[in-house]
């Protein structure tokens, strides 16, 4: 069990990682410094696992974690991992489900990145966001996304400038509305069909 004081950094983006944590008490904020801004990625509550990529590979951490309260967490390493899992089937199951979600998320991201057409990439990011919120993409509904151009460009794997161009083009086509804090997609099914046809075209 490890304890962090409010405000402590638990680990920094870019530092090598060999531990991961199960949050027992207190909240943990996940942030990334993008340019001159600290961007909030998520806030975790007790029962959640973070830093789990560390047991997979000794890649640098992909985000910074900060204790928002006094935080108590169980710390796992590659070495104690199996022993701890044996004694904690619920944690093991939680981790299994987390891995399932991560695999799915990565595959979904891969699908976006392998699209050749940039417009299709950006449209597919909207589809992914809709799926994450369990929204039906086959209905011709308007959906509001709490997202920004920078987020979109991150997911689409394209530079923000290029992403903005694509979004502006979608605005001109009246397919979306661009607001400072949100983007409204007028007809999500229109994007679903567009991405589907591009993907098919690519497979040929």
């Amino acid at each position: 069990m490890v304890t962090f004081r409010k405000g402590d950094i638990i680990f920094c983006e870019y530092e090598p990682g060999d531990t991961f944590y199960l949050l027992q008490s207190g909240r943990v904020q996940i942030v990334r410094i993008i340019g001159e801004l600290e961007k909030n990625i998520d806030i975790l509550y007790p029962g959640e696992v973070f830093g789990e990529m560390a047991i997979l590979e000794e890649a640098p951490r992909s985000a910074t974690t900060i204790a928002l309260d006094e935080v108590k967490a169980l710390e796992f390493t590659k070495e104690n991992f199996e022993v701890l899992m044996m004694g904690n089937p619920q944690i093991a199951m939680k981790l299994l489900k987390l891995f399932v979600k991560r695999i799915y998320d990565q595959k979904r991201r891969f699908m976006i990145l392998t699209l050749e057409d940039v417009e299709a990439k950006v449209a597919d990011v909207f589809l992914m966001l809709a799926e994450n919120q369990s929204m039906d993409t086959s209905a011709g509904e308007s959906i509001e996304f709490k997202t920004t151009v920078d987020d979109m460009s991150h997911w689409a794997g394209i530079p923000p400038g290029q992403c903005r161009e694509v979004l502006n083009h979608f605005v001109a086509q009246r397919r979306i509305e661009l607001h400072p804090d949100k983007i409204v997609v007028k007809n999500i099914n229109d994007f679903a069909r567009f991405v589907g046809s591009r993907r098919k075209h690519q497979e040929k």
Partner: protein
Amino acid sequence: MPKSVQYRANSIIYFKGDQSERIYLLNAGKVSLSYVDIESGQEMRDLIKTGEFFGVKSALGRYIREETAIVLQDSTVMVFSVGEFEQVASKNTRIITKMLKVFSNQLRRIHKQVQTLLVSDEQVNPETGLYKIGEYYMKNKRYGQALHAYKRYLVYYPSGAFATDVTSKIVSAEDFLSRYGSGEPPASAPAAAPAATAAAAGLSPSVSTSAQQAPADASGLAQQYYNAVSLVSQEKYMEAFKAFKKIIDGGADAEYSTKAEFEMAKCLFYLRQFDSCIKSFTTIVQKFPKHPEMKDALFFVARSYEEKGEKAKAAGLFKKILSMGTEDDPVIRKVKKALRTLEGGRV
């Protein structure tokens, strides 16, 4: 209760695109999973071994099936609901740990595939990345967090491109932290902050279990301290600086941490971090107005001003030191010599 179900050869257990919360365990027979590889677009087939589960990911994650399960020979399959699977697995965690290994391999593979597609625009050199995080928090006056990032930097890149800069910034961050607090940690934190932050960062191997740490034993400390002093005498100032820092971070008692702090400030002078040197010694003499080595401290401050070209300030301080000691004091002799050089230089 999980049910045992017989399947005839050539039947389908489930289709790609189905949504279901059933998990299967092959007891006897032959089942294959066919799916399209996302990278190559090729149709792939995996054989399920007897005793192996399948359909787990889509059931647990409530996603649609990504593969079609085809029965190749007459087979017996146990069918579990997610709840039943969880019950069985929690009684036999080997099932879960084995699956975790399989899934972590899959995750590693897909993660790599994604990273290769991102290489061009998202990869930042981790050394620079870590440094920039420190810079960000420093700039935004979040000193506790800046300190953490900088200290991690020194752990991983002790002779990195930014090491000297980081070393002096650690001193400034600690100074700011003790004077203004970080805004984030509790206001009472200053004195304990550097050690506690370092402990939380896991800087010393013994602290990973708690942010609190018992001081190392005295003889070990003395050894550590004299090793560090010997680095100074070998003019290995950066290494010495870090060695002293480690003593403080390790939660040394007041005697050794005070000594180490003093030596660190000296190292900063030799590392030509004059501003940081001045700041550090100023903090020390404010904290200990009757410091036994007050004259030495002021001497380094004066020399730092001299190096910075602020000769009037340097001369003022040298004269102040002179008023504090007698002729036979080696510091006084050094000061007199320095003053002569300084005033000679001005003419």
